[in-house]
């Protein structure tokens, strides 16, 4: 198992786990290069520009890390559920609900701002967890497909929050056209970590969430049980795991983590909830891609999220300067995921036919 780290074969093992994602990244960038070529531009020059304006200039590096914050946390939320075999594609809805509730609490809870802010975070996490429990309970009680229900709930969350910021909670003081809530109190805001950019303490929260994930997955009985449930449900049941309990805790944690992603964005960057701020940026889906590319490994997800965030920051830079649509970043990252899935082919053929059958059956039920 991966747990037993001895320094002797750490290097080869690291290479073995990095090899496939790196090859996939190379192929993804190759497809991107072909697309850029089709746009009539020089791929090498475009890539140099892209990476200069995402990783190799301090200002842009800070933008990349700022954008990576919600992506990292969404990746962790996705990884939490997927590694236990629960295909939660509703991270976006859980993030939107949790963040919206946190923002509303921050705006309306009376008392000292710091205390109210803390309560707002907790309320948001509870809301996100409850929203994630909805598909979990429906799957448990009625055997409906979690794929469909969790995705449907994304749209429900987006439309309902959109209603609230368009009508009852709209900020009437400022720009009349902007669909957003008023700003939260200054004392609640997360401190900036850089004087020249918007890089803020939200990133430290993302690091903390990653460490929490590493701890849960490597060092707790729950982490082992949930992984076994995903790996081989009948074995887990044989071993005495209470699957319903594991599912409830897993999904609640996933939803709570998802809510942290958006709340960190509001408290650290935007200071208010604006309509579509979390969905149009597709943080949750980028996080999902990161989780898939990193094969649900927390440390891997952390770095892949930063890489994908850099692609997007670089993508918007080349859209401004070279006129190549920023969706080039989406194309590259989806191709990377597709190429990573080619890796799964070899794995599936060797040792995992049982798991695949179970997964397909579960998703169809």
């Amino acid at each position, binding site marked *: 198992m991966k747990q037993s780290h001895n320094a002797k074969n750490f290097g080869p093992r690291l290479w073995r786990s990095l090899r496939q994602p790196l090859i996939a990244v190379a192929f993804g960038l190759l497809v991107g290069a072909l697309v850029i070529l089709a746009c009539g531009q020089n791929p090498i020059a475009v890539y140099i520009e892209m990476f200069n304006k995402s990783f190799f200039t301090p200002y842009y590096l800070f933008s990349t890390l700022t954008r990576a914050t919600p992506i990292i946390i969404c990746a962790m939320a996705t990884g939490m559920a997927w590694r236990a075999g629960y295909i939660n594609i509703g991270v976006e809805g859980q993030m939107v609900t949790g963040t919206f509730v946190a923002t509303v609490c921050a705006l309306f809870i009376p008392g000292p701002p710091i205390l109210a802010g803390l309560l707002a975070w907790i309320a948001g996490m509870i809301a996100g967890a409850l929203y994630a429990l909805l598909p979990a309970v429906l799957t448990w009680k009625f055997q409906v497909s979690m794929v469909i229900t969790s995705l449907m709930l994304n749209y429900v969350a987006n439309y309902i929050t959109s209603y609230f910021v368009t009508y009852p909670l709209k900020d009437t003081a400022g720009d009349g056209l902007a669909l957003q809530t008023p700003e939260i109190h200054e004392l609640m805001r997360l401190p900036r970590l850089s004087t020249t950019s918007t890089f803020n303490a939200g990133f430290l929260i993302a690091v903390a969430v990653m460490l929490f994930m590493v701890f849960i997955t490597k060092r707790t009985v729950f982490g082992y049980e949930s992984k076994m449930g995903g790996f081989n449900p009948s074995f887990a049941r044989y071993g005495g795991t209470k699957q319903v309990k594991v599912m409830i805790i897993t999904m609640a944690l996933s939803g709570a983590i998802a809510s942290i992603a958006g709340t960190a964005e509001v408290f650290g960057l935007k200071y208010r909830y604006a309509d579509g701020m979390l969905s149009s940026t597709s943080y949750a889906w980028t996080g999902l891609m990161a989780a898939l590319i990193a094969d649900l490994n927390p440390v891997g997800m952390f770095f892949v999220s930063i890489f994908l965030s850099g692609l997007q920051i670089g993508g918007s830079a080349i859209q401004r300067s070279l006129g190549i649509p920023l969706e080039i970043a989406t194309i590259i990252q989806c191709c990377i995921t597709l190429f*990573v899935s080619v890796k799964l082919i070899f794995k599936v053929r060797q040792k995992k036919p049982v798991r695949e059958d179970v997964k*397909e059956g579960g998703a169809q039920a």
Partner: protein
Amino acid sequence: MSSAYIASIINSTLRSTTPILLAALGSAICSRVGVFNVALEAQMLIGCFFSIAVNYATGSLLLAVGAGILSGALVGLVVALLQVKYKAADMVIGTSLNLLVQGGTTFLLYLLFGLRGVLNDPKLVPLYKINLPVIRDIPFLGRVLENLTILDYICYIVAALLFVWLFKTVSGFHILSVGINKAAAESLGTKATRIQMQMVVLSGALCGLGGTALSMGQVTMFTENMTSGRGFIAMAAASLGMSHPLLTIFSSLFFGLCQGIGLALQNVIKSQLTMTLPYVATIVALVLFSRRSARRQA
């Protein structure tokens, strides 16, 4: 509630049903051969885009519909290759293709037309609206069938044809046998993997046609991510219809009705709230009918 109002709701139900039904049929044939195809959304959205793009470029309706079908089938082919032939994980392929097509169509919209978000041009040729001479004058029915396109009729014919093919012909039985027991079907000489791949490509073509019905039906335009979850609603419709082509018609009509009612209620309730109706209805319907489908599978 006046009869004209009811007729207009039925009319918009029929129009909203078409894309869902076509995609649901695609989903149904995939699950009939034991493939869990999550890329329906991608197959539909690419059909929306290419039908409108070819419509804009050539002005030919036939080419536009053909492009919609073909592009959907191409995405289906990718699914067939990666998921069926190389046995990659269904959710990974499905979600990444859904996102790839979402990003790719937005990319192409900007690259080819220099547009962001919407392609809506007077140059686009709409599908013929069918207003039959006699029926048009019948009070209630005339309003119900007003301005439907040919695709709104074709989708039911497709469902009927699929039913006959799957349940009344020998090749249909071969297809069904693959889904029931792949190993047994193979042992009798059925090329099971090949049939699975063909069915996934066919599902792509059906979803592509569904996407065409969406972008060239009630309106003639392309909007970024205009399928907005319809692929997954279609998946739910197929599952409620127990992957049976004729039952799927009724489940699709139910989801079409939800969209029709949602549209009709927009005058009374704020649109953000009525927009949630199809999604909530999907979950409720899945829960209500779950017992039955569970018993069938057990």
